[in-house]
């Protein structure tokens, strides 16, 4: 992973000193809240319902165990002993005090971490495939390019006061596990002629109140021209994105207002003009960053098949965990392991300090000290020898983090909702807990098969409800919390926005409604057909009928 040198450390300490000064000026009344707000936001600090919330960047979801332990320390010392993995591969601390924030940032800097640009109208933390560097279907490691983008976008002189927040995601594998279609800019690494690769660039995706699937703007961009192309894209947006209405300020609105072709024309014209300005990285600097992501030296560790099969046969929990949480690795002796923070009853994505430390222990023992955060709010151990899987499972058992439900209906994405967030209309976490309890029987969840269920507490869609196979959106209906259900969304290669199925439900009716949807799917599906395929084939009617009866 990327390791800081003197330059990066100096930059971070300069940044933290600057923010400490800004906090002091705010506390002394020399900065108005209006002036302080964008400055604190650019350092990840929100003012929420009950307290300040600090969102810490986990660049493209990659953590060392040293960093993970420090996050645990911060949770203990300055929060209430836990943190929350976010849907953009970050972590949030929900109970920090303003006066403590400069010290927290210093503690983060000790392990080369920060909260820079995790909020505010700037280029946010770049997200990537959580399996990067390990995935069996990878063309090129996207972390290299995510790090290049992280550096380029950090404290950018021109793009720090954009019309609205700006999110970039990148994937380097055949399967999109970074939801690139729902980002302001989505980047897909594609193979080129003679073993080369390039970038296919998408623009204008997003969730929120006006969801769009991103459109292709560039079919193939040579790698050494990524920064200049993005700079042209951002400049056109900065100049022409709407600033009169916060709800129409994202780039998706601009792109859809003028059309992708008109936007492309402007971008290409600007790009032609600036291509000689040396915005792109010199080859040696790109090589310096690439060297940080050299593949780990994995020793051959063939698994004893008989022993492995026996272990699976003896323990159905282990067997299920292997089926759902163990994923193919580039090296057949190894596996990518998902550690689910989704067992029944847990608020999705919440992690205690102790759990962080135990996962760090497991990663040190079994995965070369590396951990990833997924946008689905789980953790990943990217390089586990298959021969160690049974031992790892036993170690995780002690922590309770052995839910074998990755990708299943109980692997819910949820935002913090009205329990924390001052934007929310409704609570998300209790709904998620109710649903996970309804489907707590592992056999039941497994029989349903892969199913993405996402919950947002408001139309801002932090819980990605638009892209859930089943989406749940909290709405305010005459002062009571209600939940609207969408069907047919997808975050992946078949990216789609779910359709609203009908009138909303009060909280207590939601688990029943979800069960009816699931039962309808099970009744309608043919053979191994997934939820989306069934939905595409039979349409919304059978589901409407199950939910609302024939009278509707």
């Amino acid at each position, binding site marked *: 992973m990327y390791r800081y*040198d*003197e*330059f990066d450390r*100096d*930059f971070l300490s*300069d*940044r933290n*000193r*600057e923010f400490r*000064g*800004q906090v002091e*000026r705010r506390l002394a009344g020399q900065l108005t809240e209006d*002036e302080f707000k*964008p*400055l604190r936001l650019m350092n990840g600090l929100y003012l929420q319902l009950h307290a300040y919330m600090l969102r810490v960047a986990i660049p493209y979801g990659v953590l060392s165990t040293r960093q993970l332990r420090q996050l645990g320390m911060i949770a203990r010392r300055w929060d209430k002993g836990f943190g929350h993995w976010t849907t953009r591969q970050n972590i949030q601390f929900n109970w920090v005090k303003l006066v403590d924030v400069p010290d927290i940032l210093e503690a983060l800097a000790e392990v080369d971490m920060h909260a820079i640009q995790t909020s505010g*109208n700037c280029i946010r933390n770049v997200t990537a495939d959580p399996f990067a560097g390990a995935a069996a279907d990878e063309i090129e490691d996207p972390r290299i390019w995510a790090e290049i983008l992280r*550096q*380029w*976008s*950090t*404290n*950018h*002189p*021109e*793009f*720090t*006061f*954009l*019309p609205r927040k700006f999110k970039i995601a990148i994937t380097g594998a055949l399967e999109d596990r970074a939801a690139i279609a729902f980002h302001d800019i989505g980047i897909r690494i594609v193979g080129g002629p003679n073993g080369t690769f390039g970038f296919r660039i998408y623009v204008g995706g997003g969730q929120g109140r006006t969801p769009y699937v991103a459109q292709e703007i560039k079919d193939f961009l040579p790698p050494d021209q990524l*920064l200049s192309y993005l700079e042209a894209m951002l*400049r056109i947006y*900065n*100049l022409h994105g709407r*600033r009169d209405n916060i709800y129409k300020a994202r780039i998706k609105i601009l792109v859809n207002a003028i059309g992708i072709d008109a936007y492309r024309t402007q971008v290409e014209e600007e790009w032609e*003009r*600036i291509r000689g*300005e*040396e*915005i792109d*990285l*010199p080859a040696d*600097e790109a090589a*310096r960053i690439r060297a940080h992501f050299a593949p780990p030296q994995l020793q051959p560790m063939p698994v004893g098949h008989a022993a492995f099969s026996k272990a699976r046969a003896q323990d159905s929990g282990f067997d299920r965990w292997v089926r759902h949480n163990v994923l193919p690795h580039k090296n057949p002796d190894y596996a990518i392991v998902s550690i689910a923070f989704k067992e029944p009853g847990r608020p999705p994505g919440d992690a205690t300090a102790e759990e962080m430390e135990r996962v760090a222990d497991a990663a040190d023992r079994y995965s070369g000290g590396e951990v990833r955060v997924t946008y689905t709010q789980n953790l990943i151990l990217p390089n586990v020898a298959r021969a160690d899987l049974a031992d790892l499972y036993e170690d995780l058992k002690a922590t309770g983090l052995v839910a074998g439900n990755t990708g299943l209906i109980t692997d819910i994405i949820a935002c913090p909702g009205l329990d924390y967030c001052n934007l929310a209309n409704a609570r998300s976490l209790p709904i998620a807990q109710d649903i996970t309890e309804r489907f707590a029987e592992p056999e039941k969840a497994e029989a349903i098969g892969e199913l993405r269920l996402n919950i947002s507490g408001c139309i801002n869609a932090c819980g990605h409800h638009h892209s859930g196979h089943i989406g749940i959106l909290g709405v305010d209906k005459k002062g009571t919390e209600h939940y609207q259900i969408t069907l047919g969304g997808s975050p992946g290669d078949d990216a789609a926005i779910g359709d609203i199925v009908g009138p909303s439900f009060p909280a207590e009716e939601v688990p029943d409604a979800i069960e009816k949807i699931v039962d309808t799917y099970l009744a309608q599906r043919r053979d191994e057909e997934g939820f989306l395929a069934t939905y595409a084939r039979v349409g919304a009617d059978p589901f409407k009928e199950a939910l609302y009866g024939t009278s509707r």
Partner: protein
Amino acid sequence: MEHRVDLKTAALSQTSPGVTELAVTANRDERTAAVVEAVLHGKAIAIPFAKFNDGRGFSIAHLLRSDHGFRGEVRATGHVIPDQALHLLRAGFDTANVVNAEALFHWQSSLAHYKGAYQKAVRNPLMQRRLATQRIKGEQRAAALSEKIAKTRDLTQRVREIADSVEGRITFSTSLGKEDQAVLHAIVSAGIDVDVFTLDTLRHFPETLETLERTEKHYGIKIRVVTPDPMDLEELIAHDGEFGFRTSVNSRKACCMIRKVLPLNRSLKGAAAWITGLRREQSAERADVDHAVWDADLELIKTSPLADWTDGELDAYIKANDIPVNPLHDQGYPSIGCEPCTRAVSPGEDPRAGRWWWENEDGKECGLHGRERRLEVA
């Protein structure tokens, strides 16, 4: 009263040219029209910020510089805050409106907050990430070498340490002054492989050229003679005349640039280390000279093995080793440059007082060693 901060100097701006205002919504034609008016009438272009977080002005300033090539003053007016100072400067602004003079302090501290920047911008006053790796390594190597040099006072041993520590071409530029003659003696004694050259400005004293010849014979070596680019010289003389350097500091610096600095830079290109004869006792400006530093502009280690030697040590070394020196030293010339620009000094005068003696005391360097911090790129 309206105040403006000059972002490049972090001081209140003294100038107040007229302004032409340019809206943040300006299209290319409108920007062109503003640039034409500003250039014709010597005006600044003011970009008004309705609110500090309306960042369109940053892109407009960028375009004025990079698309239109505008070199005049670009001013941020309206609501801008000190925390944006470096963003403004790097995006191409020169000045910004300040609410009151007391706020200047915050602008100054904001401008001084960062040492480095990750991306290339219109202006690059900070160390850039892409250049930092080489610099960090260079600084570490230079610091290690500096320590080794300081451990001995033996000059031969010192130049040997340089040869042992540096991989790649080592150059030594000699002015044939007594410091450089001492260093050359040490280089020859150490028997190390060094590219020795001298800059012939075509205006040297005859005594200097005689010293060159005498030195080559004395040591049985060839010293490479580097002369100014004839095209550059022709242009300089066409513009300023043969003695233009007497009329202004700028003309003098142009003359030094063409006769010395550019030929030096050409000769140093690709070198890994540069040996100089700089000594702290030579002048106030050289009082902090280090034995070895990383020169980020030249991308090499600049060494000064004589840095801490006293006048007495140097004279004793020359005498003890019978080193040939320029006879002008005995006629009152401690520091010898070009003939028209060097005079003898009286006993007790600053050793470099005889260089460009008609100019002010500050900044009397030809540019070989003293480099101003460069905020401007365009």
